């Protein structure tokens, strides 16, 4: 299988992100216009000069028209992209490939989601007609399966893992409280989270991503054109997507302690970017902490630590803002919130701020060792998942 990547061929030259939250007063169109305006301002370009658009939304709209209409894009190629919760990063991937192919000089990827108009808690997908035998469990319950499985496999006490998961939420809330765009800007202790009632398995509501409305956008151009727009572009080092074949739900050997799609996507991305030791060669990572146990096992699947050690590393603070490899410095899905189609691009937005030295001082990371960052975004559930891993860098190699 060939996966050549497009390392250093495409650059992000402008980004924008709305605040995430329960925007009762903002429509999908309002969110789209705000993210687009911020991105175009940051790149110093008008929408009519951008050649093509990819619009990521999971459940708020159905076609490119939903982006073309609010932005009044006339005669433009606009494509709606959907890949579960990895929709936002998928839209960026499409835009980058379009520019790398030479088909267009510039493209915008915009992800947006308006989830708070449903009247229900949590996320609710469009019902597709089926034979009625498909599982109807909530995502929280599916991801809660990780804790007992991990406890059994590595001989760690379940109560200990309960605390580890809460410790991840504590970290992400710590970071989120230093982020003015985040949905939740309040610190909370792991101890307090452990005391909360469980909603699925041992997980409490504080182990779940915030359900939020929001939008984020990126403008990409060929790498050689990047400096026409900004002095500090971010170069695409790797873009990888793996859609699982759902075998984890069929194969009795799958044990819910790993997310194989993520591991394969990471391996592919490291290969594209030429990264051998991710923990040393990455300045930071934004990962898909939809639920706290997800972030824990991602540390292993992304190669940040050995199998069976992530729980200890979490307790040691390895992934804290001042840790060896800071993870979810903007608060992650947990504190920043999770407007499905926007989340992947929101993660890139944090790398955009951090690698350009624009993150607020109280959550800015050290760039001495590396100026590369990883973005991991997934959709689906353990056993049946789509996973994205992207890597960006502040410099051409």
């Amino acid at each position: 299988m060939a996966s050549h990547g497009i390392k250093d061929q495409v650059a992000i030259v402008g980004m924008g992100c709305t605040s995430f939250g329960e925007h009762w007063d903002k429509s999908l169109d309002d969110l789209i216009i705000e993210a687009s305006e911020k991105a175009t301002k940051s790149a110093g370009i008008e929408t009519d000069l951008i050649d093509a658009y990819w619009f990521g939304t999971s459940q708020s709209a159905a076609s490119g028209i939903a982006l073309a209409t609010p932005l009044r894009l006339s005669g433009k190629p606009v494509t709606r992209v959907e890949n579960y919760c990895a929709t936002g990063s998928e839209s960026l991937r499409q835009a980058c490939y379009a520019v790398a192919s030479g088909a267009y000089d510039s493209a915008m990827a915009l992800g947006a989601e308006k989830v708070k108009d449903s009247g229900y808690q949590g996320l609710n997908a469009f019902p597709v007609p089926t034979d009625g035998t498909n599982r109807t469990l909530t995502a929280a319950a599916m991801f809660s399966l990780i804790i007992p499985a991990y406890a059994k496999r590595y001989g760690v006490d379940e109560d200990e893992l309960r605390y580890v998961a809460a410790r991840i939420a504590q970290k992400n809330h710590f970071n989120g409280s230093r982020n003015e765009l985040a949905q939740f800007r309040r610190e909370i202790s792991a101890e307090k989270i452990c005391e909360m009632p469980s909603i699925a398995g041992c997980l409490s509501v504080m182990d779940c991503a915030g359900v939020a409305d929001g939008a984020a956008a990126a403008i990409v151009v060929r790498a050689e054109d990047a400096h026409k727009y900004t002095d500090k572009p971010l170069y695409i080092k790797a873009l990888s997507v793996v859609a699982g074949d759902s075998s984890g739900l069929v194969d009795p050997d799958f044990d819910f302690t790993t997310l194989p799609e993520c591991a394969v996507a990471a391996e592919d991305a490291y290969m594209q970017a030429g990264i051998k030791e991710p923990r040393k060669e990455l300045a930071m990572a934004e990962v898909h902490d939809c639920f706290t146990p997800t972030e824990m096992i991602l540390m292993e699947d992304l190669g940040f630590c050995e199998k069976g050690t992530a729980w200890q590393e979490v307790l040691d603070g390895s992934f804290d803002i001042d840790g060896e490899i800071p993870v979810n410095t903007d608060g992650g899905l947990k504190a920043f919130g999770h407007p499905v189609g926007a989340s992947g691009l929101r993660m890139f937005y944090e790398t955009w701020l951090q690698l350009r030295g624009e993150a607020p001082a109280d959550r800015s990371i050290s760039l001495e060792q590396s100026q590369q960052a990883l973005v991991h975004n997934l959709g689906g559930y353990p056993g049946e998942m789509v996973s994205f891993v992207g890597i960006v860098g502040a410099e051409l190699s």
Partner: protein
Amino acid sequence: MGVHGIISYGAYIPRGSLLRSSIVEFTGKGSNKGSRSVASYDENTTTMGVEAARNALKGSESNPKKLWFSTVVPAYLDKTNATNIHSALQLDDFVEAVDFGNSTRSAMGALSNALESDDSTLVVTADLRTGPSGGTEESSGGDASTALLIGTDKQGVLLAEYLGGVAITSDFTDRWRVPGSSYSQVWEERFGEQAYKPLVDRAWSEALKKLDIKTEDISVALVSGLHSRAVARSIPSLDVDISNDLTDQIGNTGAAHPSLLLANFLDQAKPNEIVALIVLADGCDVLFFRTTQEVENRRNSFPVSEQIENQSTVPYSKYLSWRGLLDSQLPNRPSPTRPSSSAAMRRNDWKMGFVASKDTTTGIVHMPPSRIGIKGGGIDDMEQLPMADSIGTIETFTVDNLVYSPNSPVVFAVVNFEDGGRLPVELTDTDPEKIEIGDRVEMTFRCLYTADGIHNYFWKARPIRREREKS
């Protein structure tokens, strides 16, 4: 032709048991004595019928040519419910499946007609009885199902021979229910009592005369009728031993009750016993059977008495909510949409019969069935593998308090099966706090939910009720 009789039998009593004292506690009415059986929120007469029928078919190598299903509470009208049972049992397409509806007497009609038929017939009965809160209909009713495989000694080894019987029909309105109502109304009790007594006397003496049977030859009589006082009043003049009618423990299970008593009798019968089944419903039916030597060899794989012992108490509030008599707050999630009939038809073997596919090259079992295997191989290199009787082990599980369910929380487990394959599946008939990784489970046919009037039938797992029959 040959001798007609019972080839095998099965009974199903739901796990739920409602103490009558809990009704008294809430309503201040009724008697504290005993309990009644309660079908779970995910059960209806069709799913219960499937349970009993699976039980019956396990007891014999013979397969029926006909499937007759009789209930007073059909899950569907217009659409045949027996066809749902037919596909859950994975019977041959040429097995005729029909419903016998409306009255409890139809169940006896199905049985007596099957006993006269030359085709082997699986007679399935089920009932689900409710009544106004605090009333007799509610507390004296019960939920259960039965299945009797009826045929000749040419079609299978008989457990009991049918000796013959009589039926008296009498038209009087001591109980009635208009279509659409979930329970019956009754006339002043003494009326029915006096109407039934002479009918039973006549039917009994006529049956004894017709079949030339003496009361001293009869081991026991099973007397069943929804009018409990009429039953009690009729018994003394029969002049035979009367079997416990189980109503103290599970209530009167209406359409299912006569054959449930028969099943309970067969669970304990010795060879060469003559049993009389006497049913008081819009007349009186009397049927005689004589057990064979085989009766001791092929008992029901799960005796009625043991099913009653295994029941678990259901609070009155839960019973009311399960029957739709109490509006309960559900999680604030969208309610499910109806299953697609065309999608369901394409996957009927999976959805209704729990038939997986097995990769003929790798041997890997795929649930749901798959056209291409997870470990490679060609397209459609699969054979069908029925999994309904396979035992599974819980690999990991979770309790979901958020998801929509008529009975939140949902207990959900990843189950690996001893015949191969894995399925993440909902558990039922269980207490969340009692589940552990490594527990063994068996599959049960249930109604996941009903949307737009369509019952979404599929399978769930439940803790195994007893270790497999020695057979």
